[in-house]
């Protein structure tokens, strides 16, 4: 599916209902906001049907005043000239997500880093160990907006 | 036979390297001449400064602070070389070019507090000769067909 517009149109009418919104963002990126329920199935559809097999990265962003967090995965496919940003919104109090390593294996590093930086824990991740921070890090989650440097004596 | 040639070819290539002279600069006796855009230690000009403190605001690691100077009522920039990253923003965005780069890099000190240069200290740039007493000549590099050599530019 090398062309962006017909990817959007075909994805829209096939799985438009299962997904909160699909739009073109910055004329060469497709931004898909998924629902918590059908989160993994849509990922598998993206990978098998539309050929997005290259996992670029995964990261989160924190909106404290709207009391929500957003986890997005960046996906690419060898024969398309656009990338897909697969997002999901999380309420700030229950930060639980099914792990994406079953779909894209290489996301395990990025999920470990998001866990220690934002506090989103991914069930089903096989070795959820701190990636960048020291294992005995007692402080809060550094990349959150309300992180004031606790845990650093 | 071909693999014997393959074995001998690297030897034939590396052997002449031994005859070349070394491409190193013997630092205390020879010192490189840096290019004129080189970002070494700052030089500050009192008369050009209009105390607008743009340099203090544009500095990304907040190493420039405006300090009082006795004898003058305005405040002038003081640079703390512990955290300066020589990025050149202060020099670039200063409207009156009051701060400029020199090619002095011999700034080793025995105490951190000495690295905080007051405006007067910034305006006086010591000569390279008395910073590097054992220096005999200044050299610069040039390319020949096979190697990079260093030639003497001037005696000091």
């Amino acid at each position, binding site marked *: 599916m090398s062309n962006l517009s017909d990817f959007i149109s075909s994805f829209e009418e096939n799985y438009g209902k299962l997904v909160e919104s699909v739009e073109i963002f910055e004329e060469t990126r497709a931004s898909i906001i998924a629902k918590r329920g059908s989160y993994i199935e849509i990922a598998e559809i993206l990978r098998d049907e539309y050929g997005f097999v290259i996992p670029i990265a995964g990261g989160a962003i924190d909106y404290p005043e709207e009391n929500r967090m957003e986890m997005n995965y*960046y996906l690419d496919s060898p024969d398309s000239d656009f990338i897909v940003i697969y997002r999901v919104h999380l309420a700030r109090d229950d930060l639980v997500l099914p792990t994406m390593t079953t779909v894209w294996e290489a996301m395990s590093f990025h999920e470990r880093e998001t866990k220690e930086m934002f506090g989103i824990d991914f069930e089903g991740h096989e070795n959820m160990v701190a990636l960048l921070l020291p294992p005995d890090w007692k402080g809060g989650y550094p990349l959150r907006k309300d992180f004031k440097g606790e845990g650093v004596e | 036979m071909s*693999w014997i040639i393959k074995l001998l070819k690297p030897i034939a290539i590396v052997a002449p390297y031994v005859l070349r002279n070394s491409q190193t600069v013997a630092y205390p006796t020879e010192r490189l001449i840096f290019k004129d855009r080189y970002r070494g230690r700052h030089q500050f000009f009192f008369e050009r400064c209009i105390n607008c403190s743009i340099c203090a605001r544009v500095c*990304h690691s907040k190493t420039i602070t405006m300090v009082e100077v006795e004898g003058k009522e305005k405040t002038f920039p003081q640079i703390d070389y512990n955290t300066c990253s020589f990025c050149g923003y202060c020099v670039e965005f200063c409207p009156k070019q009051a701060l400029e780069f020199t090619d002095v890099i011999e700034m080793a000190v025995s105490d951190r507090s000495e690295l905080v240069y007051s405006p007067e200290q910034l305006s006086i740039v010591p000569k390279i000769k008395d910073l590097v007493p054992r220096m005999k000549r200044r050299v610069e590099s040039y390319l020949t067909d096979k190697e990079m050599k260093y030639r003497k530019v001037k005696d000091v």
Partner: protein
Amino acid sequence: MPEPKIESEIMRISWGPQHPMSGQTRILLDTDGEKVHKIIADIGYTHRGIEKVLENRTLIGGIIPIERMNMVDSSNIGIGYVTACDKTYGLEVPERAQWIRSLICEMGRINSHLYAFGLQAEATAYFPAVFLWTTIDREVLLDLFEELTGARWSYNHFLPGGVFKDFPEGFEAKILEAVQYLRRRFKDYWNAMIENPMFEMRCDNVAILEPKDAIRLGATGPVLRGSGIPIDMRKEEPYAAYNSLDWEVITEDACDIMARTKVRFHEIGQSLNMMEQIAKEIPEGETRARFSPFSRAPEGEHITRVENSRGEMSIHMWTDGTTNPYRVKIMPPSLRNMYVFERLAELSEIVVADIPVVVNSIDPWYLDSDR
């Protein structure tokens, strides 16, 4: 008669940060003396929290910390961040500035690949002759950088809207002279190192990464192109002046260490051709669009994807109207290659003595992956 199961007790060797050939990271190897069964990469020793640092700096001030993420190849990171700033501010970069940006990126790429060669030679215990050759050849490029930008490695010559300064006069002649010199030097590298039978013995079909595995594990850069997949961000999403320069993506399909080394080698050739084109056909014009360092960044969200010497580096920048970015998500290439290195033990036969060569063929930059 069932094949006798060799009871080999596995011991875990820690290839620590203090090991002579390990770099700033720790690798745990499950091995029975010779064969490596499992690799666990324990990275994070040089984590400086650059994403947090960027949040309390102005957009323009963020260029300096982000260029220190990978000192050898700092220009190819700075270009990503600066392009993101251009999109945020909506600045129109003049044509000449784009060409100067491409020149600095390509010189940074040669610089970084040369450094990778040196480490590769030292990993096969080539008695670091080639490492010092590359150091001295990089001297030629560092002199060019010093003349153009004023600094030898962290140049931060880029500004949102263009570059700091134009070429000093007579700079094009110096570029051409350096390009001729480096081309002559690379004949020596090809004959003394890549055609070296002992080097081939150490590198041929070792640590093979199949194309489909490379894609599945998210390999990028010379590691991906060494397995025959022509993905290069300069072609996928042309930035700076890459669509007006003619060059082609290099791929090798031998999928082993020698292929990755050859990809880096031919990429240097391509970069030298680009440098030559830039020196000859750079258009005239001023080099900086009107921009004040204290202007507020308009609200927005932009992604830029840039080809670092080690792979695809993407930056996702959210801005919320203040002078500082709201959040900058950096996707370094070395993190993706480190995961490939972790899975390599299961994909192909690796011996303990091969670990330094394999690590250097993947050439991760640990400061890059730790951010």
